[in-house]
């Protein structure tokens, strides 16, 4: 009974959407804001990747809000699971020798790859969020392969807090020096397509990459340790 009613409702919504889709042609230019960002993005920010300059320079305040939401979710998960007991030291069977050696060999390589992605966020596709997710999957590999090794909890909490603080402090320095608005680009922009260019964008992406990586690692650590 519930299935039939919901199918009929969804069918009515589908008819309405097909009627509205006639007004949105696929592949035609629809807005004009994008053209302004593409034409003036290179001189105003100095970054070669226009999506990075939109995320961090033109709409930097939204990125600050998103980092706050991720922090709240990680804190909420830690609070909800706080009263369960920790797993006791049962006899965990060790993995085979090939698996342990392979995981230990791959772990620094994956960390290096993740760091490369968020260092070059303003030149190639990439950035802080993608690099942070890759760093978190490197720690997941250590959890699954070499069983019984724990992550240093104090170190990961410290990295997460320092990453968030660096973002806020760069914004507040831009408020006093520089252009007198929050998150203004006050460091001189070098020439395009080199590593040290685009003002404060690489510094903020390094902070975001470290923060997101240690946050997702903390989420997985909380889920695995509590029984």
């Amino acid at each position: 009974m519930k299935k039939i009613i919901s199918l009929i409702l969804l069918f009515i919504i589908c008819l309405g959407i097909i009627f509205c889709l006639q007004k949105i042609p696929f592949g035609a230019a629809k807005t004009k804001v994008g053209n302004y960002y593409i034409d003036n993005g290179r001189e105003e920010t100095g970054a070669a990747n226009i999506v990075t300059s939109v995320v961090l320079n033109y709409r930097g305040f939204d990125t600050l809000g998103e980092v706050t939401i991720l922090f709240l979710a990680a804190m909420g998960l830690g609070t909800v699971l706080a009263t369960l007991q920790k797993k006791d030291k049962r006899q965990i069977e060790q993995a085979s020798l090939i698996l342990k050696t392979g995981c230990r060999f791959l772990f620094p390589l994956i960390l290096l790859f993740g760091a490369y992605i968020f260092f070059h966020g303003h030149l190639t596709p990439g950035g802080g969020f993608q690099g942070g997710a890759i760093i978190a999957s490197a720690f997941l590999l250590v959890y699954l392969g070499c069983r019984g090794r724990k992550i240093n909890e104090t170190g990961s909490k410290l990295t997460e807090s320092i990453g968030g603080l660096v973002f806020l402090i760069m914004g507040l320095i831009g408020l006093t020096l520089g252009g007198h608005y929050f998150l203004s680009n006050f460091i001189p922009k070098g020439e395009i397509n080199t590593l040290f260019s685009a003002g404060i964008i690489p510094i903020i992406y390094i902070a975001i990459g470290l923060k997101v990586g240690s946050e997702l690692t903390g989420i997985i650590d909380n889920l695995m340790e509590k029984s």
Partner: protein
Amino acid sequence: MEFLTDNIYYIGAFGLIFIGLFIILVKHNLIKVIIGLGILDTGINLFLIAIGYINNGTAPIFSKPGLEAGNMVDPVPQALVLTSIVIGVAILALALSLAIRLYKHYGSLDLRKIKEQRW
């Protein structure tokens, strides 16, 4: 037939949105409902990127120094979807932690049984 081949991306995105909504409305296992939430999220992101596409456009990155701003696709929806993907994974993590807590308290994950009990 012309309608199908022109708007194939819209059909894919709306198909995912409808399947996600159907799972949330009909199923009564809590983890299945959370899987439906994830599929709904992916469908909405696909729809947003499909709106910003321009015919014969390229990616908005000036990789070579001599590249000129010919016709590039719209960079604004891509920045919004980047934010939306990360928020989606944060929501899924929090929802799953609540599901684990519910299971420890009530003993089952069936929504009909949980609704019947009055503490």
